[in-house]
């Protein structure tokens, strides 16, 4: 299948998710279950996407583990997103030098 078709579906779905509520909705969601579900979904998605994929992200489980531990530590101390992201990468790179 052509990549362009995939991109079109990707972009279309993503835009509709943003524009339908933003353009049309004026009321608040009242269902407690739905509100809770929507609150948890981003964290669940990111967790499922990250684990275990992060360990395959650098081509070496050892450098990836070093990056993961670094990211976990720095994010535990609530450093800015970009600092955590780049430090994880730096840790993976530095560990790679010793392999």
């Amino acid at each position: 299948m052509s990549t362009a078709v995939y991109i079109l579906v990707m972009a279309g779905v993503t835009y509709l998710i943003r524009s339908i509520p933003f353009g049309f909705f004026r009321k608040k969601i009242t269902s407690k279950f739905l509100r809770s579900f929507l609150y948890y979904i981003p964290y669940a998605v990111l967790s499922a996407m990250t684990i275990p994929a992060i360990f395959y992200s650098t081509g070496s489980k050892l450098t990836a583990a070093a990056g993961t531990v670094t990211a976990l530590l720095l994010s535990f101390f609530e450093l800015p997103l970009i600092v955590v992201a780049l430090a994880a990468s730096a840790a993976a790179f530095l560990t790679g030098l010793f392999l």
Partner: protein
Amino acid sequence: MMKKSDFLKGMTHGIPIGLGYLSVSFGFGITAVKAGLSVLESTLISLTNLTSAGQAAGVDVIASGGTLLEMALVQLTINIRYALMALSLSQKLDKSFTFPHRMAAAFGITDEIFGVCAAQSDPLRPSYMYGMILISMFGWVAGTFLGAFAGQLLPASVSAALGIVLYGMFLAIIVPPAKKQKSVLCVVLAAAVCSILCKYLFYQISGGFAVILCAVSASVLGALVFPREEETS
């Protein structure tokens, strides 16, 4: 009504977002090219989607030759949070935010842009959001292009290490709330365990569907066990 000062203010507030996007999308560009996409395709994805997790998962679907239905469901699950953010922002729009403006600015609702906009005390005007979206998009698209284009020129050790950038950012989003709220911690752990099971035990399930399955079941679990009271934010 376009106010120049609003637009500039939006741009100023968007600079840190744009800088952050620049480095994260650099990693995305490298990942996308590694997955077999061209520089143009990678850049086009960033230009038309403006979202990190959704794009990363979308590239996986393309690389594994998934169906269009899988692509649509993956995007829906991963990006459904934007619907909630859009709902939340729609409550605090200025009168000048007419329907066409809403439909245009909706394109730029990301986690970070939502965060900054939601924190404003004044009602939001279109030009403020446009300024922020413009500079953020510039960073996101330029970073993707550079990563996709120059990623191949980087030493293998550097480009390999950059593969972890996006995941590092994801951890930085998950960990702080998981530290403070037992409910989020449980949801995050449930999703992770499910994802590990899918990867090693039920590997017939494709990556995209595994994310949907794990995220939805962990969130349903969370909503049932830890229903949330009215939000204060």
